[in-house]
């Protein structure tokens, strides 16, 4: 056991999987000597060589497209996209090829690839360095979409993703890369894809969230009156959704708040809300409340915190929903 940050937990998972399996290869911009702009891959090139930790040309479609090609020919590729905003140039390769090859070839060609991408706001970064595009990829068939909210989960989920025979996007909430530490076992372990985590149990209201918002939600709950018993669910996996855990919780509590950083309209909150009312209709005592980013771009950093649904906004939403 070591007390690790999210960055360190990811680095450890990568190290151990590369150690265990020669066919694991990391590629991306500045992932080598520089260890990536967030130092997530620090030390890996020195350890495994520049043929397994590869600095690529500055071309996201190229990174994604060759990672797909690598994966089709015996390499478990781990492309890194430097910031979620730069998934844009890689979008076509990811959704129209990476996600599709298995289905397109009825299983003859598969793409065991894990795309690592820092995601989300709150770090005072420039434009396109603070977005939350997870709903886009949840809507795209053929991809598994993961986002941990803690060092422990990060390690276990990343190992699951790397070993998964299908393409996974592993979103890393950059705001909490170094925000706190957690005990993380030395040994390899997996956290299953598709299983949400009940962070706190409760009986009055269910909060569903994921990624860095999990921390905001915990903070929000700390500010609420003692007698309001809130159940907090961290989805961990965005697709496939762990519908059963959500439904079970809301059937118990009768109330639900969904919180995410991404814009409101057609965000993943809409899906959770729709699912909940479909499956818990007769249990619902209040409309499912969404507390989200606005239908605008993440503003430049001077107003970043006005955009993000920080803990106080989450707390208000919970209070309003509970009082309905």
């Amino acid at each position, binding site marked *: 056991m070591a007390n690790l940050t999210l960055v360190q937990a990811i680095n450890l998972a990568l190290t151990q999987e590369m150690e265990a399996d020669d066919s694991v290869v990391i590629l991306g911009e500045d992932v080598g000597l520089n260890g990536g702009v967030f130092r997530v891959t620090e030390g890996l090139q020195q350890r495994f060589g520049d043929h397994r930790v590869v600095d690529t040309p500055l*071309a996201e479609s190229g990174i994604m497209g060759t990672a797909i090609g690598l994966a089709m020919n015996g390499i478990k590729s781990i492309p890194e996209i430097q910031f979620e905003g730069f998934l844009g140039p890689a979008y076509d390769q990811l959704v129209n090829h990476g996600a599709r090859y298995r289905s397109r070839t009825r299983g*003859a060609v598969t793409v065991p690839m894990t795309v690592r991408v820092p995601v989300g706001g709150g770090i005072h970064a420039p434009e396109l360095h603070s977005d939350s595009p997870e709903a886009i990829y949840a809507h795209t068939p053929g991809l598994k979409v993961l986002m941990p909210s803690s060092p422990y989960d990060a390690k276990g989920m990343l190992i699951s993703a790397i070993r998964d025979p299908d393409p996974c996007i592993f979103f890393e909430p950059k705001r909490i890369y170094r925000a706190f530490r957690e005990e993380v076992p030395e040994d390899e372990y997996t956290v299953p894809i598709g299983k949400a985590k009940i962070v706190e149990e409760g009986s009055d209201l269910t909060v569903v969230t994921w990624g860095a918002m999990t921390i905001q939600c915990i903070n929000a709950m700390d500010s609420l009156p003692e007698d309001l018993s809130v159940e907090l669910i961290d989805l961990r996996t965005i697709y496939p959704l762990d519908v059963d855990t959500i439904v079970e919780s809301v059937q118990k509590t009768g109330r639900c708040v969904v919180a995410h950083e991404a814009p409101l309209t057609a965000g993943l909150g809409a899906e959770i809300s729709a699912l909940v009312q479909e499956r*818990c209709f007769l249990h619902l005592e209040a409309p499912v409340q969404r507390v989200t980013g606005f239908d605008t771009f993440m503003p430049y950093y001077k107003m970043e915190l006005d955009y993000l649904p920080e803990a106080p906004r989450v707390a208000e939403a919970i209070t309003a929903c509970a009082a309905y």
Partner: protein
Amino acid sequence: MPIKVAYQATIEYMQILDEQGVLDADLARDTLTDDQVVMLYEHMSMCRRLDEIAFKLQRSGRLGTYPQNMGQEAIASVALAARKQDWMVPCYRENAALFLHGLPPEKILQHWMGDERGNQIPDGLNMLPMSIPIGTHMLHAAGIGWAAKLRGIDQVAFTFFGDGSTSEGDFHEACNFAGVMEAPVVFFCQNNGWAISTPRKKQTRAETFAQKGLAYGLKVRQVDGNDIFAIYKAAQEAIVDAKAGKPTLIETLTYRLGDHTTADDARRYRDSDELDAAKKKDPLIRVRKYLESKDLWSADLEDAMVERNKVKVDDIVARATNIEAPKTSDIFDAMFATTPPELARQRDTMHTHSLGQFPQQETLSNPTPHPAHA
């Protein structure tokens, strides 16, 4: 010296078998044997016939949109130069090469009949299915070649695409990655003069497509694309270079004798003069002339071959047509190695449940409504 030469380049064009069937014996040395030429001729002729039949199948509603390969059959030569372990990463106008490399021809028909099983590449065959999005698959070839290098196995990835495809950004990134990673990849740009209705001169101001490879430090070459010898030789040399970490871009000058696809009518945008001129350069005609000049071919042999090819093509069509219908469960089960629960639910209820989505949906028969609504 304030002005000096920073860079210089020269690109060569190669033709070995000319339009009249005359061979340049020097250049032809160590390329195709007589047997191979005869085999290629028969194979290319079979492909031509398959194309004609596919056209008819489309017109009679038994096949979807189909892109004829007519006029570009000489690309088959690449498959003779390639080794069993090499990869083919194709677009849709190199059927002739794919079949020779081992793809059962009915797969191509099945694909165009709207059936994913046409893309189900048989085990042991290193090949990707035809790429529908243009200009995007060359990156996979770059990755595949790179993987071979990483794994220390001797494989070359051949990828094929048209003149139009070179305008996509992914072409650029594929060539650049192959160059930087010193990956064993050979890029075949089949320049047939058109991208649907867009002529070559609207596609780029570059004088050749070959020169596009200079941007990546690739080896580059332009060859007569209707010349099985030139293509073979270029591929042979490219394999040697690829194995030494030097990818090659080869531009083949050819022509699309048919419409873009069966949904297209080339007369809307293309001069008949141009087509007539191109017909004289048909890759089949010149091989036949050559074989005849060497007394390797005759009218009798031709007749016998035509009969054999009819049977072959009928057979291919039969295999494509007589396959059992696909299962709707495949739509779901092919998505992931293990089908996630909600997706399985969609699969299992698609025919029985009204929405095909929510058998679990709370209904009035659900016995435990929440007190607030009771």
